[in-house]
């Protein structure tokens, strides 16, 4: 059972069983597939969630995204931590 977790940069996220990120070739959009519903992942969410592999920490994801987009680390960190928290609350991500 998922217990509400407070997210930290050291957390390592993975998709809960029954949830995944999926590219839809027909709509040319990313979706999060979850029990009884699929919801759209916007461009930012898709970039972040593609890095979720159950091994990479949020800190490492932030480093990689900040380098890829030549963006300030603290701005990226804010996006990543907020999304990780939201998706953990919605039982999509598990944080170890």
């Amino acid at each position: 059972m998922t217990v509400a977790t407070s997210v930290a940069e050291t957390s390592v996220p993975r998709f809960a069983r029954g949830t995944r990120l999926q590219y839809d070739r027909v709509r040319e959009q990313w979706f999060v597939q979850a029990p009884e519903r699929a919801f759209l992942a916007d461009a930012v969410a898709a970039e972040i969630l593609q890095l979720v592999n159950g091994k990479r920490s949020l800190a490492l994801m932030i480093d990689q995204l900040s380098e890829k987009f030549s963006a300030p680390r603290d701005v990226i960190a804010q996006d990543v931590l907020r999304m990780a928290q939201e998706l953990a609350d919605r039982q999509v991500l598990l944080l170890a």
Partner: protein
Amino acid sequence: MTKAPPPMSLLAELTHRCPLQCPYCSNPLRLDPRAGELDTATWLRVMDEAAAMGVLQVHFSGGEPMARPDLVDLVRHAASLGLYTNLITSGVLLNRENLKTLSEAGLDHIQLSFQDADAQEGERIGGMAGAQAKKLEAARLIVEDGLPLTLNFVIHRQNAARVPAMLDLAEQLGTRRVEIAHTQYYGWGLLNRDALLPDRAQLEATELAVAAARTRFGNRIAIDFVTPDYYAERPKPCMGGWGQRFINISPSGKVLPCHAAESIPGLTFPSVVEDSLERIWQESPLFNLYRGTDWMPEPCQSCAFKEDDWGGCRCQALALAGQADATDPVCHRAPTHDRIKEAVARRPATPPVFRYRRYNNAV
């Protein structure tokens, strides 16, 4: 004609056969016999076509889909195509062996129905002795396997008092999600409406129970609450709009915008046996009949909410207003809204006996 966006979900009603006989079943009154069911090869082709046209989720339903011996082959094939696979089951045919096979085939999620938290009442409502122990065992096996599980409870006047006990049961069983879904009144539900429709006080008590449980559960368990639309001000956006998000296939292969659409007379229902899913979705007169807003009468046509509720439910309009293209009588602006008020006002103090969902028990 502009191209319609592809459907998000496919409801695959594999069979109408079921060991239970719930008096609010969403299947049509005229049930498809086993002899008319689609074969495995056709269902496999349907999965191919669904994935190619942009369907994201497949819900294997029935009747009891586990009554089909080829269920695991269909799940495996759908999963291999990237479709999200959901099994909607009563759980009474589930055991450790077939669960393991389904899990290994790539099943993503199970929705398990309970008729009540109380065993005796649940078995009376579902019309199957011994069902509750089988359901509890099914839930235990699913949680043990690790598959995400949603419990589904259909609510009516004869079990509404036990919504708090249902939520406790969901917590004890270790589920991730629970649906507290009030009965919708068409088909078998409409036939049994007097035996099922709660009064407003009962409805409000269920709302309070759900609110209290949401506070208690926090993010641990999500609760989906479905209100009975007879007590709503505005109609529900039935199926997210006709021909917009959902496609439903009956056991014999008819392709429908909703599971009750066969109740509308004078329509031709296309079949996957004769045509492709994509052509049926895009081009069939059936799917274009109430798609969008052009078909709407007043007061829908000039209503600010017409793209929120898409005019409500066509089958309910037919059943209560006598015309499928009428405003859904649930809407407080509908000229026939009195029929909803009358149904509530004339609800008998003592519920009549159930007309159970059985072959040839309604028509």
